[in-house]
């Protein structure tokens, strides 16, 4: 309705639409130009003009009529122009314009067939030169301004010190100004260090400006806007991408490890392309995911895997509830804001960052083989045989009185020996190439980049390739309108190794890795009983092909309108399109015992977001700073997946590995479609008085499709305040303290990370096969719960920021306490309901702790040394489980406890205090039924003379580190620069089930250090602390104790980056800059003596992701790799 009437309004902005059209064309052109990387060169069109005393506008129109050129200008500009007369034949457009603009305060730029008309340099024209000092003769100073990489800097203001005389540099970085001999020129631009140059007798002054790190870090990206660091009232960590893009890793997260307090990134698997686990200030939810919300350039709900670190400008982490509350229902796990690089005005700058090197897994070297291995087997089988009453004097092999299960074939030691660990791991190549171009004019800026990355895994055949592309464009149309867009198509190709680490490594050493009779031999080809029946590790490695291909594109377009001074409106439309294909094939490559299998699944999701934000800021009477935003956001996600699999063994051959070569199993075919939507309205107000007293408050209300009809909407308020004590008069004289700020905040955030339609009672398909034909019957698969609603986290944060010695030392300390209330959690219900669990809002979890970040500039001279250090401590506690006092998950007979007052999923089992040596001891001490000599002696906690699970199990620690440290040191001296990052975590425990494969239980590969200390007999009792390692005893007596609970504390020298700047050498030879570097990751890992895992923080059963979680269990996480690369960073 309104639209219609507007159209007839006399104020209907026709011109606006014409311009918009132009802008669109311009954009289209630009895209085209950028994509093909062609440089803009003018059309050679000839124009004839004969006009007398006409307006410029008329000239423009005539040019437009005769040629393909189109003019682009602000009306306002032409108002100050004078009429012109032109009489030219077959002239070029430049000739015409140069003539027409001779006396005008205008300049122009031609971009292909677009002519942008703009004002001539502001200062020279607008500000009259001061004459106070101009007794000396003026001379014209020319020069160019560049950055350290040699890229021209446009828009740098050049002022003659002490005067109002000034100019600014053009797109090529050049400037021209009149100055006297005694004058000093000052060069300033945001983001760079100010530079002053004495004019002297020079007429050419070339200047190089250095990036002002503190200036850039002065600006902090917050949700829906930016703030000055000094005005921030919340707990936000920021890192700038200095050399992070040189850290060799396929995933950006890896480069961030150890750099931010309260942001715990753990590398639990070393599978190329696999996501490290991020938890921000502890684990707050049991069932809904704890991952932070990733916001890439304002698009909420991205994935860090879609990014290339080369494209990242900075990363901010909103840690406290007050800063995350502006993201409402998704802020509970914290928010990670990624800002990518954007264009800058000036000549195009081409940059290449390339590194290549290798990754070598760090492995064990105490494997048993041959005689030693055989002797173990003999001892083991005799002990087993004795336990069940066998006569161990019967020969170990070849006597049919001894069951084959207890015989050991001497062939095992006589065959050539192989250490399978060494066979299945690889030193893998790692490489990454990134080429980027950025540049633009004052009004149009672009950043375009392409990346190729490739890394191999610790396990042979595993690899990860990435192809990334990014284009960011910003266009300033006029003072009012600017717009831009981002595109980031990203393709990844991952191959996952065919089996996990333990089942590949644990293989017996007598089996050859060479093919035999057309296949990789397995144990049974040598010895048909008594060993693993598994196929050769090589069969798994080479016979299995699991490919995970992922295409994703986060794209966004936005328009920003500067409505009036301080008031702007931004609207954006973003999409995240993800297309994933998983192909899996497994065959025996000659081993007929391996079932051939194949499957394929595809999923697509399209996520659309429209966000509209009105921002206002105003300073009143120079002391009251107001700013605020008001916004609305609409998001919708559509997803679909389909999958199918072959009937087992139906592949005709292993040559064609796609499903067309097999029979599709009809019951494996599936399709699912789903969607969710989110409507949000939000507002934030900031107020500062004299930059001294700072207040902020925000409010967001979210409506989500994921909850029951009456519970769709949730409110997420926050308040925060800060007092900059250092700004007070009484602090003026305390010279030591340059900054002192006290902060306090409170906020509410939410978590909606449950599946779609969980509030409905779903009726799914289940199979039955009457008359031998399979039919899809139906069964209700979940209980409906119309009351389902948000999980809310209420948290406060108290912080202090201290800067000392002119901010040479900066200290941030935060204390936080947050409660997850109405936790979304699949509560177990009595099975007589027909269900085992139902998702409800029930239960409370609390996380509290301290984050400390210390940044010091230790040396600032020629030898520079900066240190950034962080510590975080988090305490997790289950406060309420919704009517249940505790519940216990069990994995391999180890308990995982949820109990009020205890950190979530604490290990819960018996405490081992020794090993039973003989039957007499067993009869005297409390023990579990069936205990034999060699089994653990358990602590009778309540001293009642018996061991029972209700009274004698104790808490044995948990998988969460108590304290995490991180430190980054960077040094630079002349042309060298060096940065060193390390990380340490203390207090976590892992349930290292990996050990049981290598300590002799499974009679596969054995590590001496694990196998040799165990109990064999009363006369051969081992170290007295290690029970007999036997599969028959494992679950009943060993895994339910703390025997496998190991200390996961570690120190990891995460990265060393050493660079040398060779720019001087290459300058003027087609290069602007050249830096060579080497980057090394995981140089040194120190772990507890008690930890026997490949990766001290390696776990395989996932993190907390539901009521049945068993976090901290390690079934063979891959070894971490030491990565060493050489790289170059070249500017053209």
């Amino acid at each position, binding site marked *: 309705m309104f*639209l219609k009437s*507007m159209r007839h309004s006399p104020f*209907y*902005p026709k011109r*606006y639409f014409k311009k918009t059209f132009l802008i669109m064309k311009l954009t289209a052109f630009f895209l085209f130009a950028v994509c093909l990387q062609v440089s803009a060169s003018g059309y050679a069109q000839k124009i004839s003009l004969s006009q007398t005393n006409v307006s410029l506008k008329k000239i423009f129109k005539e040019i437009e009529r005769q040629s393909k050129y189109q003019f682009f200008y602000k009306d306002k500009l032409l108002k100050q122009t004078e009429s012109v007369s032109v009489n030219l034949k077959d002239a070029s457009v430049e000739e015409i314009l140069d003539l027409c603009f001779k006396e005008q305060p205008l300049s122009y730029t031609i971009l292909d067939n677009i002519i942008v008309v703009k004002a001539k340099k502001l200062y020279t024209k607008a500000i009259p030169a001061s004459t106070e000092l101009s007794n000396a003769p003026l001379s014209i100073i020319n020069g160019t301004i560049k950055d350290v990489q040699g890229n021209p800097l446009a828009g740098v203001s050049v002022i003659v010190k002490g005067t109002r005389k000034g100019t600014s540099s053009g797109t090529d970085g050049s400037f021209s100004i009149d100055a006297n001999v005694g004058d000093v020129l000052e060069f300033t631009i945001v983001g760079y260090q100010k530079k002053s140059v004495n004019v002297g007798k020079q007429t050419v002054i070339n200047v190089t400006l250095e990036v002002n790190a503190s200036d850039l870090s002065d600006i902090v990206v917050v949700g829906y806007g930016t703030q000055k660091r000094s005005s921030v009232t919340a707990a936000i960590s920021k890192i700038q991408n200095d050399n992070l893009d040189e850290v060799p890793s396929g995933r950006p997260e890896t480069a961030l490890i150890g750099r931010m307090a309260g942001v715990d990134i753990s590398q639990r698997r070393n599978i190329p392309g696999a996501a490290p686990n991020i938890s921000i200030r502890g684990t707050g939810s049991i069932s809904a995911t704890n991952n932070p919300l990733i916001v890439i350039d304002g698009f909420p709900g991205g994935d860090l895997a879609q990014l290339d670190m080369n494209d990242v400008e900075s990363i901010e982490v909103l840690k406290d509830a007050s800063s995350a509350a502006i993201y409402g229902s998704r802020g509970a796990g914290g928010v990670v804001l990624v800002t990518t690089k954007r264009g800058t005005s000036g000549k195009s700058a081409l940059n290449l960052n390339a590194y290549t090197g290798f990754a070598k897994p760090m492995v064990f070297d105490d494997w048993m083989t041959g005689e030693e291995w055989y002797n173990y087997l003999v001892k083991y089988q005799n002990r087993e045989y004795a336990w*069940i009453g*066998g006569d161990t004097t019967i020969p170990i092999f070849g006597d*049919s*009185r001894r069951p*084959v299960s207890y015989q050991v074939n001497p062939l095992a030691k006589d065959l050539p020996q192989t250490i399978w660990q060494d066979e299945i791991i690889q030193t893998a190549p790692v490489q990454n190439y990134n080429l980027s171009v950025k540049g633009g004019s004052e009004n149009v800026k672009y950043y375009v980049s392409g990346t190729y990355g490739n890394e191999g895994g610790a396990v042979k055949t595993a690899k990860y390739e990435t192809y990334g592309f990014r284009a960011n464009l910003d266009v300033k149309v006029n003072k009012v309108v600017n717009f831009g867009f981002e595109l980031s198509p990203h393709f990844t190709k991952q191959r996952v190794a065919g089996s996990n680490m333990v089942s590949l490594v644990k293989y017996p050493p007598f089996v050859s890795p060479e093919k035999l009779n057309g296949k990789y031999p397995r144990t049974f080809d040598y010895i*048909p009983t008594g060993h*693993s029946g598994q196929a050769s590790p090589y069969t798994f490695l080479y016979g299995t092909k699991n490919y995970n291909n992922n295409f994703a594109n986060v794209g966004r377009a936005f328009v920003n*309108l500067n*409505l009036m001074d301080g008031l702007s409106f931004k*609207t954006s439309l973003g999409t995240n399109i993800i297309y994933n294909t998983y192909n899996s094939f497994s065959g025996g490559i000659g081993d*007929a015992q*391996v079932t051939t299998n194949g499957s394929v699944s595809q999923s697509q999701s399209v996520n659309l977001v*429209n966000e509209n934000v009105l921002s206002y800021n105003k300073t009143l009477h120079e002391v009251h700073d107001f700013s605020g935003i008001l916004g609305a956001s*609409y998001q919708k996600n559509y997803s679909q997946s389909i999958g199918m699999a072959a*009937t087992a*063994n*139906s592949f005709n051959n292993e040559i064609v590995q796609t499903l067309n070569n097999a029979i599709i199993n*009809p019951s494996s075919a599936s399709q*699912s*479609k789903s*969607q*969710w*939507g989110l*409507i949000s309205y939000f507002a934030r107000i900031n107020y500062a008085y004299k930059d001294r007293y700072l207040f902020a408050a925000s409010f967001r209300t979210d*409506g*989500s*499709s994921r909850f029951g009809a009456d519970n769709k909407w949730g409110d997420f308020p926050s308040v925060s305040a800060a007092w900059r004590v250092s700004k007070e008069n009484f602090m003026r004289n305390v010279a030591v303290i340059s900054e002192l700020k006290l902060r306090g905040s409170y906020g509410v955030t939410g978590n909606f990370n449950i599946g779609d*339609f969980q509030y*409905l*009672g*779903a*009726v799914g398909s*289940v*199979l*039955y*096969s*009457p008359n*031998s034909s399979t039919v899809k*019957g*139906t*069964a*209700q698969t979940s209980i409906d719960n119309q009351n389902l609603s948000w999980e809310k986290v209420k948290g406060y944060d108290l912080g202090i920021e201290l800067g000392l010695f002119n901010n040479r030392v900066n200290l941030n300390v935060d204390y936080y306490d947050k409660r997850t209330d109405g936790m979304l959690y699949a509560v*177990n219900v*009595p*099975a*007589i*309901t*027909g269900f085992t669990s*139902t998702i409800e809002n029930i239960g409370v979890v609390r996380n509290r702790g301290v984050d400390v970040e210390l940044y010091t500039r230790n040396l600032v001279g020629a030898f520079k040394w900066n240190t950034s250090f962080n510590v975080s401590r988090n305490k997790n506690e289950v406060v309420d489980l919704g009517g249940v006092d505790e*519940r216990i998950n069990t994995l*391999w*007979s180890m308990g995982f406890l949820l109990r009020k007052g205890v950190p979530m999923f604490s290990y819960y089992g018996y405490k081992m205090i020794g090993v039973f040596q003989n039957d007499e001891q067993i009869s005297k001490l409390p023990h579990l*039924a069936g205990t034999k000599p060699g089994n653990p002696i358990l602590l009778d906690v309540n001293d009642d003379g018996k061991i029972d699970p209700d009274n004698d199990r104790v808490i044995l620690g948990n998988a969460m580190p108590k304290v995490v440290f991180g430190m980054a040191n960077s040094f630079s001296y002349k042309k060298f620069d060096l940065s060193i990052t390390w990380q340490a975590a203390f207090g976590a425990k892992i349930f290292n089930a990996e050990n049981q494969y290598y300590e002799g239980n499974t009679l596969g590969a054995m590590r001496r250090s694990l196998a040799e200390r165990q109990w064999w007999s009363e006369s051969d009792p081992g170290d007295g602390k290690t029970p007999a390692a036997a*599969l028959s005893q494992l*679950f009943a007596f060993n895994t339910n104790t703390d025997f496998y609970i190991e200390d996961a504390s570690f120190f990891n020298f995460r990265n060393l980056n050493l660079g040398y700047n060779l720019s001087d050498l290459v300058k003027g030879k087609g290069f602007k800059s050249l830096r060579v570097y080497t980057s090394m990751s995981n140089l040194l890992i120190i772990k507890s003596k008690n930890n026997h895992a490949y990766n001290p923080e390696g776990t395989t059963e996932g993190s907390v992701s539901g009521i049945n979680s068993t976090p901290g269990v390690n079934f063979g996480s891959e070894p971490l790799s030491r990565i060493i690369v050489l790289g170059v960073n070249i500017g053209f």
Partner: protein
Amino acid sequence: MQKNKFNITILILLSAAFLLGSCEKSLLRPVPESVLTTANAYNTAKDMDLAVLGIYNSLQSRVPKDFELMEVPSGNVWVQYFATAPGIDEISTLTVSPQNDKLNSFWKTTYNGIFRANLVLANIDKPTDYATSKKEQLTGEAKFLRAWFYFDLVRIFGGVPAVTTVITANESRNTGRASEQDIYALIVADLKDAIAGLPAPSSADWGRASKGAAVALLAKVYVYLKDWNNAKTYLDELFSGEFSYSLLTNYADLFKVATEKNSEAIFSVAYAAGTNGQSLTYDLAPIGGVYNVVNNGNRVIRPSWDLRKAFEEDDSRFPVTIAEDWYPFAYKQGDPAIFYPYINKWLVPSDPASSGLDIPVLRLADLILLNAETLYNLNKPDLALAAINKVRERAFGNASHDYELSDIATEEIFYDKLLLERRLELAVENDRWFDLVRTGRYTTVIQHIEGEYTSKTGGATIMTMSAKPYMKYFPIPYEQIQLAAPGVLTQNEGYN
């Protein structure tokens, strides 16, 4: 310009507002596209038929693992490999703790089946398009299956919560155990209703319950209740001309895919190879597979010497039940056999994880032996003897191994022979443990288990396994007691 700017803003803001007003519904109230909900799933007779198949699915998924609870404690088998089935170790040594995961998952899947049956019964009146007697058939199937589930529960746990309607989580927390008697009453009532509604075997789909199945199950239930007269009533009906069940000539044919649909199987749980198969072949075959049968196995249970030595040499059931000469999958002509006894019953050539063999959970030989027991208890030893001999004659191919009346001189001796026959006939078919418990013999028979044996001496490894009187019931799963309101779900004696 200034004026224009504002108009533009207003325009954009308003158009945004327009966009948004209309999208609330599409954003916040999407309808699931690829899944039904309780609101729209039960409208037609076909919907109900599919929901009944859903009940069979519960049974189907549980039955292949029933041996873990029902056969493992019986002394017929011993457990070699604990890792694949945590919790089975406790059952094999009869040191079962309430935390045992096998028990808990058995409880969960069985009550899930009961829920599905209750849901069908709750919605059965909704559709109006039933064909003649279809509604009665579906009701009968739901009740038959519910009775089946409760019969399993009562035999494992004794009295359990009697749930016959769809209940909420809150109600469930306050539902305690019914008495064993009440559960049996529920089973009897359900089976009587099922008999009334179910079709004759000839008109029932293979793998779905028929009237014959309900009659047979009710007879079996009465034997468990030692209600010999009622047992006889239903056994007589079963053996009357109404049904035409008969023993197969060849015992081995019972466990072959080609002959799985046969006159002896009264109720079989149906599977289809590849698409909807079961895993018994894989669970029982030795690691390394079996030549010409399966390419790998998991040898979860292996035959005990107790069972092996109970077979007479010419019993045709022995080679079907136990194989001792093992030819691994990778066998090559001329390789010697390895002496490695494994359970051979249920092994059919298949993809390891998906065997299509239907599992006959109620078959005529069982009922004939139950009939023998009933007749004996009704003072008809001659008829009882004839019934046992009928089974033996099939096993040995002739009457040479028939018992004489003198062989069953006392009740004790009769039961020795009867239970032996049941053991041999129904080995690894989940009856042995319950037979020992219901006859009170478990405490004397199960004192140890003779496990792995050798061909040379037969000397077997001896494992401790001592059944105590309280072990006639397994413990109520600890988790279920915890989830119920305090004190609502009581633990069985001996497990506290």
